[in-house]
């Protein structure tokens, strides 16, 4: 059978793309190497009776338009809005960042959100425009909305929004959660435009629930899901992709392919070197990608002593601009930072089903953790060193936590690489930097997630829309596919 579209990866982006395309009446197949759908949206029982989302607690908000278009609420996804956040320092100082009313924050937040919406609108608009290759080379590209906002450094815009250094550091912590960046470097102000940090919401029942509802939506729309089958190769002829070869030798014919893998994996593992156009090879080679996020899941005997309003919180542990800059330097040198940029959440406080009665499940999202330490792979000793370091630094701000730990599970970037198939374990699908954002995410002269190969679309986090919200990359790729099918660009 010949499909209209084959989608590689059944994560949130892949499922969103499948739903949109299948609803439009196209024959769609989703191919996933793992035995279950959902990608990073997964809930893990890490200690008997204790559960938590394994790779991230919160998903970047699914843009409202996409949420409604996919009818996720109808399939059981329930959002918990992001609460206020708290920052704690070892000397008992604390600072509160309240999305609704903190000094300077409200207007900044509103402005940033409006800009982020405009950026997404631009990404979707680029995708919905049918692609017309030109012999004269790529056309001039108008600047994206929000690009000017991204030029300064994070420290600069923090100083613009807040007076006190503590609040500035708190702001940077809320924005960076789990990433690695030098807040003093020009261009780091792009981070607030890329959701993932404090501007998002959690899902009732852990992220596994979101995966479930996305899968239901895709199946209801009529997409075929094929789980547990690894894609080995993309078939192409004369610069046009026309199908997929699976690991077991089956060939699937398809008019186009949407890959939700990152740029490196898409081009280097799915193509023979000589089939790649020069431009794609260069781009994939120059694409910077590096995991920086580690997760520590803690099963606690009793809930830690955090003020009630912030019980499920994000609680940022001892943030400071200098610490972020130093952590970023050690990340670049592939060492473990002395002061870990860390954000805590007692997930069972917001959702009691995640831990047995009277006990608590807490997650720590740690930033600036290298994919591989400079002296070789992560060993058992290095893992326990990092775990102990993290627990010791939590103990400094939340006294008595260390004594309550019943069990701990550490998930490193290299684990994410193995489990999720992210090159270097990078949850963002490529470093968030100005030269890898906006039109320059993916291929600048092929807007909307298109690639130099006809019929191949990028629908993951490495596409222009992908960085802007959960499901956005897949949604935009689906739009691009439909526009190109209509315009007759695809065979």
């Amino acid at each position, binding site marked *: 059978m010949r499909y209209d579209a084959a989608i590689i990866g059944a994560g949130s982006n892949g499922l969103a793309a499948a739903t949109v395309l299948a609803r439009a009446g196209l024959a769609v197949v989703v191919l996933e190497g793992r035995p279950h759908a959902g990608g990073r949206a997964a809930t893990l029982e890490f200690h008997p009776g204790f559960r938590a989302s394994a790779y991230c607690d919160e998903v970047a908000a699914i843009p409202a338009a996409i949420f409604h278009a996919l009818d996720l609420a109808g399939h059981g996804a329930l959002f918990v809005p992001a609460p206020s956040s708290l920052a704690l320092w070892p000397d008992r100082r604390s600072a509160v960042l309240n999305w609704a009313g903190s000094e300077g924050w409200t207007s900044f937040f509103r402005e940033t959100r409006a800009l982020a919406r405009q950026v997404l609108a631009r990404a979707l608009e680029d995708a919905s425009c049918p692609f017309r290759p030109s012999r004269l080379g790529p056309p001039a590209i108008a600047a994206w909305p929000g690009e000017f906002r991204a030029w300064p450094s994070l420290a600069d815009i923090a100083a613009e929004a807040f007076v006190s250094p503590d609040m500035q550091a708190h702001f940077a912590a809320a924005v960076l959660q789990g990433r690695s960046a030098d807040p003093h470097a020009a261009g780091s102000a792009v981070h607030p435009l890329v959701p993932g940090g404090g501007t998002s919401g959690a899902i009732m029942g852990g992220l596994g629930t979101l995966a479930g509802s996305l899968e239901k939506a895709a199946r209801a729309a009529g997409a075929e899901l094929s789980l547990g089958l690894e894609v080995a190769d993309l078939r192409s002829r004369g610069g046009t992709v026309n199908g997929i070869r699976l690991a077991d030798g089956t060939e699937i014919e398809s008019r186009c392919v949407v890959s939700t893998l990152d740029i490196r994996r898409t081009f280097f593992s799915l193509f023979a070197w000589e089939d790649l156009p020069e431009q794609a090879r260069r781009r994939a080679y120059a694409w910077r990608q590096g995991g920086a996020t580690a997760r520590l899941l803690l099963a606690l005997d009793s809930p830690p002593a955090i003020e009630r309003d912030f019980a499920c919180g994000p609680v940022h542990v001892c943030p400071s601009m200098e610490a972020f800059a130093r952590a970023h330097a050690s990340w670049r040198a592939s060492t473990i930072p002395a002061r870990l940029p860390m954000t805590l959440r007692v997930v069972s406080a917001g959702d009691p089903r995640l831990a047995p009665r009277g006990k608590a499940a807490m997650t720590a999202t740690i930033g600036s953790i290298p994919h591989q330490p400079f002296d070789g792979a992560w060993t058992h000793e290095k893992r326990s060193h990092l775990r102990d370091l993290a627990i010791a630094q939590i103990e400094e701000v939340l006294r008595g936590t260390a004594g309550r730990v019943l069990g701990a599970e550490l998930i490193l970037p290299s684990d994410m690489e193995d489990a999720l198939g992210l090159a270097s374990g990078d949850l963002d699908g490529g470093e968030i930097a*100005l030269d890898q954002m906006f039109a320059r995410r993916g291929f600048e002269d092929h807007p909307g997630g298109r690639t130099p190969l006809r019929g191949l679309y990028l629908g993951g986090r490495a596409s222009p829309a992908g960085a802007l919200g959960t499901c956005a990359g897949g949604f935009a790729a689906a739009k691009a596919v439909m526009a190109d099918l209509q315009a007759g660009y695809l065979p």
Partner: protein
Amino acid sequence: MSAAARYDAVVIGGGISGLVAAARVAQAGHSVLLLDAGDTPGGSCRPSSSLAGVRLPPGASHCVALDPCVLRELRLVRHGLQFVYPDRPLVGLSRDSKPLIVAGDADEAVRAIASRSPADGESYRRFHREMASVARAMLPIWGGEGGAPCASGRQRLLLSRLKTASAADFLNSRFESEAVKSLLAFDAVEPWTAGSALALARRAALEVAGRQGAVFPLGGPSALVETLVLAAREAGVDVCSRARVTGIEISGGRTAGVMMDHGERISCETVLSSLSRHETLLDLLPSGSAGLAECAELLRSRPKIGEASILFLLDAEPQIDCGSAPQSARFIVADRLESYAASARHAREGRLPDELVLEAVIPTAADPSLAPEGRHLLSVRVPGLPIAPLDGWPGLAVKFVERVVSALEPHIGKLRHHIAGLELRTPDAGTARPGLRGGDLFLPFAARIAAPVEGLFFCGSDAEPVVSASGSAARVAAGFAGDYLAWKRRT
């Protein structure tokens, strides 16, 4: 001067840029007064006062790259200016390996680099070609003609990448040898900031514009200043030394005159300032008249990182161990690409960096007349230093010079024993520029020259795309001021 002194234009600061601006405005037929705070005009090019017989101040030999248009328009050759044309390749010195010589001639440079890594040799050929093409595309912006960069489709893609990428990331994606990367990164000013990659094309731009960075006035910058004073006087400029400006008078939102430290007031239509944006807007204008937002922004972005320069007077000819390269080369000591980021981070924290990055030239190798008979000069420039270190510069100076000497000693044998005198210029908040922001290099001259007050123009090194005493910005600013005066006369 009488109390009722009145001029069309007043130029503040008698450095190279101030003199060029004054001469050009006067050539257009306006009456011009040049005010300089020093005993003789020259600004930062005034010869060293503590080293007798030396015709060079610290740091000046690194940045003079006179715009050929200035040379022509002010007929400097007729006023007796002569030039030397030293061969000035870029030489990377390193403790562990032989010096790396990147000659101006591409083939020679490719051969030298290929001996380190064959792949890098080829990459350099491409890099060199690309930088030259970018430099040509940027001519309208960097050459001061105004207008958009004229680029073809492919160039546009490259430009948009360079405009947003950091030089370090860009070099990392092209080269594998640390020696090559850390050597080329020196010209990028702050190689870790977004947008600094475009600065890599500046050297190519100088070559394209015919200034090469290798044409030096015979007799050093002070000879150039003397000639410029002659040219300015001939054009009808009144040059006034020992006149410190304490304020710019505004009336009706326009510049109306300047105030001097001895209470005198001079009225004028327009003011050209060769001081930095910070000094001019915050210290000279009546408070708040530059606009609250602009002032707040300036106060926030007070530069923290600057550069120091040291001029060593030596009693023997320094012999830098540099293989086949001439002694007139530019020598760069930068061990690793990471050193640049580390020194910026340390400087921001108010400390001396652990690893100094520095540039050394031997001015007397090209022009022996700069030093007294039998003496020689070694000029060193060290970027990435704190402007206000925790211990204060007076306490740090000795330690700093000691560090510089020991960094150079492995390359210049017995340097310590031949030092007959030295002069140190510590980083200074007045002349340092705030951190490079991505996009700065892309700003047209107009955006850097114009001030928030009508009638005020910047013509100093702040108005140049990259710090250099080229006179380009002054030339363009003079054009603006002339147009402004003509417009005022008409209305």
